[in-house]
């Protein structure tokens, strides 16, 4: 059932009094999810955050364990897991879907205890895009939409007189049931939100991504590789990219083992001690990123490892555009089908 809250900021103050609440926070030209300070949230000014919400669940760098040498040899000590209750408010549907993609990786065959602790203690309140925030948005091309609920516990939609709050998961239902500020929504409010969702969906420019059209051997990779400067921005700002490195920091006597984000766009990422590198050139690394997102992940999980947020398009310093790459392969395949 859908709920309704008139003053979202009153609800945020209430939530922040109970748990750690993260909301979109503007700092000069950067908008990111920071701990709520009481500063009112203004939906009109918020498009999307510069970085996705990924790092709340999977920080850029974290300590996995400590090691120490004593008279009996070495000891390992796992850092206490981060089990703080958290709520994220205002994450866009693309970024919430990004969390669902991360779940696929960090659960799977082996459960990652560090991710699991944060994930199961976090409630995500998504915020529908009443207008696609950027012209680089392409969520509808990856089977999502400006109001999709993948990865969310609650979907919020801003209406004229308040916010419609849709319960998506049990966690979300429990959360909304616990607040006096929340009432049942009426039919009119539900209809209005639905209309906004539909209109916004139509405004997102859709491209046709055809997994089977993406070629492995193609001149395109070399061309894109020549433009690429290998900075890794596309992957560090991606809501779904999860690659990391594990490094020892310290002496032989004591220290810590940390995990930090890494990127397949770096040459050293796959460089082996022997000097052999399976992906020595930038073109091969661009190919790996896109094949992984639109082919390999899709083979394993039936969905793209891309949520169409458009950050990699917007923020690439040399304007590499995944949408253009996908359109190029689709057109090429169509031409070949006509003239075999």
């Amino acid at each position, binding site marked *: 059932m859908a709920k309704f809250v008139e003053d979202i900021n009153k609800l945020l103050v209430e939530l922040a009094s109970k748990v750690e609440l993260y909301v979109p926070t503007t700092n000069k030209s950067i908008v990111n999810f920071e701990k709520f300070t009481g500063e009112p949230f203004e939906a009109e000014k918020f498009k999307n955050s510069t970085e996705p919400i990924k790092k709340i669940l999977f920080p850029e760098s974290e300590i*996995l*364990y400590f*090691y120490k*040498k004593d008279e009996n*040899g*070495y*000891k*390992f000590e*796992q850092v206490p897991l981060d089990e703080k209750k958290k709520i994220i408010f205002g994450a866009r549907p693309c970024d919430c879907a990004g969390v669902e993609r991360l779940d696929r*990786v*960090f659960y*799977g*065959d*082996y*459960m*990652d*205890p560090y991710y699991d602790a944060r994930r199961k203690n976090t409630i995500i309140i998504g915020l529908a895009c009443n207008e696609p925030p950027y012209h680089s948005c392409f969520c509808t091309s990856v089977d999502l939409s400006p109001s999709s609920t993948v990865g969310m516990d609650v979907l919020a939609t801003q209406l004229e007189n308040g916010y419609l709050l849709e319960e998506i998961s049990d966690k979300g239902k429990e959360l909304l049931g616990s607040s006096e500020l929340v009432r049942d929504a009426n039919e009119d409010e539900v209809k209005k939100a639905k209309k906004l969702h539909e209109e916004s969906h139509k405004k997102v420019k859709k491209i046709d991504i055809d997994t089977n059209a993406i070629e*492995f*051997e193609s001149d395109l990779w070399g061309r894109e590789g020549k433009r690429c400067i290998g900075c890794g921005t596309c992957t560090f700002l991606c809501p779904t990219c*999860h*690659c*990391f*490195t*594990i*490094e*020892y920091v*310290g*002496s*032989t*006597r004591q*220290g810590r*083992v940390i*995990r930090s984000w*890494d990127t*397949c766009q770096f040459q050293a*990422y*796959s*460089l*082996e*001690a*022997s000097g*052999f590198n*399976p*992906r020595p050139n930038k073109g*091969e690394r661009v190919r*790996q990123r896109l094949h*992984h997102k639109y*082919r*390999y*992940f899709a*083979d*394993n999980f039936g969905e793209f490892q891309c949520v169409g947020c458009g950050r990699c398009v917007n923020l690439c310093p040399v304007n590499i555009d995944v949408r253009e790459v996908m359109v190029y392969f689709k057109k090429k395949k169509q031409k070949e089908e006509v003239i075999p």
Partner: protein
Amino acid sequence: MTTKIDVENPYLPVPLKLEEVTEEVSGPRAIKRFKVKKLFDYKPGQCAMLSVFGHGEVMLAISSSPTRNYLEFGVLKMGIVTNALHDLKQGDCIGVRGPFGNGFPLKEWKGKNILFIGGGIGITPLRSVIYYMLDHRDDYGKLDLIYGARTSADLCYKKDLEELEKRDDISAHLSIDVKEEDWKGYTGFVPANLLELAPPSVNTIAITCGPPIMIKFVIQDLLKLKFSDKQIFTTLERRMKCGVGKCGRCNIGNLYVCKDGPVFSYDLLKKFPEALE
């Protein structure tokens, strides 16, 4: 891909004392053998992550057979961690976590002849299978080992090789790349030795491990010898950090070498153009 593995923390190693450190090969491409207590049960072909405190972790093939009561690794001195490992002595402590990966499908191979083709340090995963099969000798047909290194000094596990050469339930065919006086084996590259010996492919599985360039030519030659894609197996090496299919770097197609490999049939690998470059 679907079996959930119940480990509380797959990143946390167990500290173990080095029970024995043996120099196998000296010189610029030194190889040492490290023996620790048998921390877990495993299958031949599986790997473990070894950590050297203050230096880092390295994923290594387990070179001992699970039929023996210890874990052993053959390590070529190459990068930061293996260099640090080579500086350790008996009684020093390392971290171990594992086992990782799929291992060889040994049960499916019962009754078959097995042809091992190794180069250099690539002998390590083969050694685990060889001793497993020698300890279950009746389950397998003819066993042949084709193994080579740059020079006779670079041959790894020389004592084992001498012992294998004396046994009559396995044939060892050794080679070195360049001519040496007193060398009784074959002189030339491993793929050339394979073509010379031309083992029959009937009811035979070929397993090849070694440097990427050797694997590439060995596979070409096995195909010439009428081995089918499904009869050829290899192990792949990639840089790894996590061992559990999450850190991303050993990705090939929709697979991860650390958890879906390192053992692959050529039938599967040929679908991934990047795998055997």
